[in-house]
């Protein structure tokens, strides 16, 4: 097994294979990592509502197996749950993986003891928005939903009676439903930065729906998969070129969609930027949630953005935001968390991205894709020919 190899794999355990999405490979791999002592803990997505799962840490393989089945969750801020150096494996959407890598750069996570099992992602949906969409657009009772998937540009809900209800995503998103805004313009669908990238794209033939396509990205990737194979938890077979091609095609299509959304949401600001930003932030109630959830912010309670700005400041904008803008210019991965938790519905991710994009392009630096030092932490700019 080598870096760059692609396989299709599945869980040997029938129960996991049937319950888990596309063959339960990920679940089986995580459980095996725990059972064989490759890791001390695994992050699983505990289902707490019809449309909501939260990441929790467990050392119990049974709990891992129980969590089988793909669920959306918020980006995982690993360091919030675990001490540095804990041997851990986590299932990770591209943004989870990127967040984890950015935390590793800030010494909050030890990348050498962290196995990132990447999952393809076409975007996630906000539970509350999803419910509203089901009631108003699909005219379905949210409690009746059995499963969901995205296929050929359509968002398909399966109800408990086995019926499938499909609507074009574009239409939904036109009306402000569907995926989170940040997901709509996110162009990273395959977690190439993770140790191993898994997903159902590119699984063809009779394995379709029963197997997971995996690409090995690192030595750790080899370790965790080999460990599962040795444990007899999973079986794999080399992926064929047709599969690879299809996977690449899907990815390409998603990127085009993302590019379009980018044009739409991040179109240049008309008129005064300052007014735009002052209005956008006018309702801020200084709750600090955006910082608390930010996966690339390593700071604790005390941080420059909070320590030196106060609700008592008589400013036209809050120093808190301006300092955070600077700190995130090179590091914002656009995960969408800040927008999610903002109590006054400020589209924060959108704003951070507006500041981050030009900087990240100028430095040709894409946060979370590898362990490159963020430019702001750099020591010498002149190397880049100032």
């Amino acid at each position, binding site marked *: 097994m080598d870096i760059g190899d692609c396989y299709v794999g599945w869980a040997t355990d029938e129960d996991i294979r049937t319950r888990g999405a596309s063959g339960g490979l990920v679940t089986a791999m995580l459980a095996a990592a725990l059972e064989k002592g490759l890791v001390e803990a695994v992050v699983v997505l505990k289902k707490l509502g019809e449309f909501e799962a939260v990441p929790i840490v467990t050392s119990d393989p049974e709990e891992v197996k129980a969590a089988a089945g793909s669920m959306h969750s918020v980006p995982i801020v690993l360091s919030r749950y675990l001490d540095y*150096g804990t041997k851990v494996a986590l299932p990770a959407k591209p943004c989870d993986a990127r967040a984890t890598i950015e935390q590793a750069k*800030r010494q909050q996570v030890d990348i050498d003891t962290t196995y990132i099992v990447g999952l393809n992602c076409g975007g996630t949906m906000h539970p509350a928005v999803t419910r509203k969409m089901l009631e108003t657009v699909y005219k379905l009772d949210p409690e009746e939903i059995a499963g969901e998937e995205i296929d050929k540009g359509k968002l398909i809900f399966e109800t408990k009676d086995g019926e499938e209800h499909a609507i074009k995503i574009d239409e939904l998103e036109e009306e402000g439903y569907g995926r989170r805004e940040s997901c709509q313009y996110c162009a990273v669908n395959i977690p190439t930065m993770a140790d191993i990238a898994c997903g159902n794209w590119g699984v063809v033939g009779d394995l379709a729906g029963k197997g997971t396509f995996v690409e090995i990205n690192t030595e750790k990737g080899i370790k965790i998969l080999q460990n599962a194979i040795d444990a007899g938890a999973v079986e794999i077979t080399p992926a064929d070129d047709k599969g690879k091609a299809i996977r690449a095609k899907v990815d390409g299509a998603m990127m085009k969609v993302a590019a379009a959304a980018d044009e739409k949401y991040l179109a240049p600001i008309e008129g005064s930027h300052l007014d735009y930003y002052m209005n956008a932030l006018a309702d801020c109630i200084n709750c600090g949630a955006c910082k608390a959830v930010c996966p690339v912010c390593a700071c604790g309670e005390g941080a420059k953005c909070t320590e030196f700005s106060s609700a008592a400041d008589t400013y036209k904008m809050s120093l808190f935001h301006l300092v955070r803008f600077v700190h995130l210019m090179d590091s914002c991965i656009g995960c969408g968390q800040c927008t999610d938790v903002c109590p006054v519905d400020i589209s924060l991710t959108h704003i951070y991205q507006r500041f981050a994009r030009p900087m990240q392009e100028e430095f040709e630096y894409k946060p979370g894709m590898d362990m490159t030092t963020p430019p702001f932490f750099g020591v010498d700019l002149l190397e880049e020919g100032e």
Partner: protein
Amino acid sequence: MAEHDLYHLKKLITTPLYENYNLVNERRTIMESEEPRIGVFVCECGVNIGGYLDTQAVADYALTLPNVVHTKVNKFTCADSGQAEIQAGIKEHNLNRVVVASCTPRTHEPTFRACCKEAGVNPYQFEFVNIRDQCSWIHMWDWEGATAKAKDLVRMGVARSRLLEPLEESSVPVDQNVLVIGAGVAGMQAAIDFGDMGYNVYLVEKEPSIGGRMARFDKVFPTNDCSICILGPKMVEVARNKNINIMSYSEVTDVDGFVGNFEVTVLHKPRYLDTDICTGCGACQEVCPVELPSEFNENFGIRKAIYIPFPQAVPMRAVLDKDNCIGCKACEKACEAGAIRYDQEPIYEKLKVGVITVAVGMDAFDPLPHNNYGYGLYDNVITTMEFERLLNAAGPTGGHVVRPSDAVEPITVGFINCVGSRDVNENIYCSGGVCCMFSIKNAQLLKEKRPETNHYIFYMDIRSTMRGFEEAYNRARDLGVKFIRGKPVEITEKENGNIIVRVEDTLKGEIANVELDLLVLGTGLVPNEGISEMGSILKLPRSADGFLTELHPKLAPVDTTTDGVFVAGCAAGPRDIAYATAHGSATAGRATRLLSVGSAPIMGITARIDEDKCVVCGVCVDKCPYGVFEIVGTNGDRRINVVEALCKGCGTCVTACPTGALEQSHFKNDQVLAQVRNVFQYGGE
């Protein structure tokens, strides 16, 4: 492999070092308990301030600011009378903060700090407001504007002083051993002075012998005495000095630690023979079949693969050039002492020293890359250093100056000055008259040796600045050396090897074509090739010219920005032998201040960390040029260890720290922000 060893060794050195110096980390700040009581003293500086803005109005305004309990306008605050008024104010009003609005902290801060200290106010709770250089002197015709600005500046200063914390300057012990890097004339002088004062000196020289550049000169200006004749005895004196430990053919590869406590790693390059047994008899080089160009002789003449650097070498030991050794073992047979050791490995030695003198010297400018004046193209264009060796009785030609093309003794010889100096395409600086005097001296020496010869010196200006130089210049003129003021524009070679120099004689204002048998380039001085590495090892900044920067060009010419490290000789710029020797002694003098007291002060404005806030993200570790920070501990209990004694107080780490856990004492975030936040005010006063 060796690289790995070195790395491993560094670890061995650094790890204990930091833990040993808790006394440094434990330096405490007395937390402010009492309410600030601030006194503001506004200086008139005669009319320098008082003449251009309303000092009394500034003082009155200051009194309306919170925590200001006393203000006074002084005629001259820095005068004894002014200082007396400050001290009286402190006593009378029980002040715990003092703000002086006068000139610049760069010159007067020490004065007022001392004044406050005497009166019982912590010197770090003194704040300086500059209303002269930044107000009265630059707004001389704007009375209102200057007064208003002065009030703002005072308000900012008061706001800052409110937050100033008392700091204690601590000190660290100073190890009594000394490191001198480079055994040229400057380094040797430093070593001798240190040694004579009774301190143990490690004198590290990368060449197989000490002596440096001077050992290669024939005679030295302006007195024209034989270079090796005066240097030789000095070299022997170094060797004989009980306190000097010569480490020849060795290099400093790493320096850790801080003033008084440097941990130095020295690489002893293998000579492939046992220096304790070798007698320097030279039998080995007699039998060695490998012939190579002799570096000592500027590649004129030959040396063997195993050789003794030069007749007066110290230590008088052979060295085997393994790269060119063919392994015939002839030398081993020839060596009666049986000193040859083909299997020698490099040795890394760890030294602990308190102070360091850097005297890594210079190189002569190399005209080859740009073929300046045809050098490298025409055989009969040579450099001064090459000429020196030809002239030298112990040189390759036994003192006969011959031209390379046909070994004929030249009749007409030309010298071009400022080659590679005062030249926008090479180095803009002047090499301090050194090359002027070289040419003059060499022309003169050859003329004296062979009166039939003619000499031309092409110069831009003659810089005969030091004592006896002008006389030497005149002597050369009297001898008939022709001086042509002009920078040669074209050099051509005739088939007989003669060189034609085309030059405008700017005094006569006419173009001259001078045919020469030999052309000598008066090459300037450039920084030693190893200087950039030495700079980074010692964390010393370098100036645009590439030489090391002294702490102050006039007032601290041998000190550097790194406490406990001093610079001597040409490492800090082109200079002649006398100057370099004086510098060598000067470093010994400066360094002894620390050695004799046995302790070195650590200034107060260093970085501090609040471990409750710190999340150990490690940004500071890379940002710090002095290696103040390191991550210690594992997993849960990881923390940043701060070695304040290494800190120079630039505060860059504080800027980088995202959490605000790092603070620079006396320049804390809220102290600077206090100034920012007092630039503006609401409505009227």
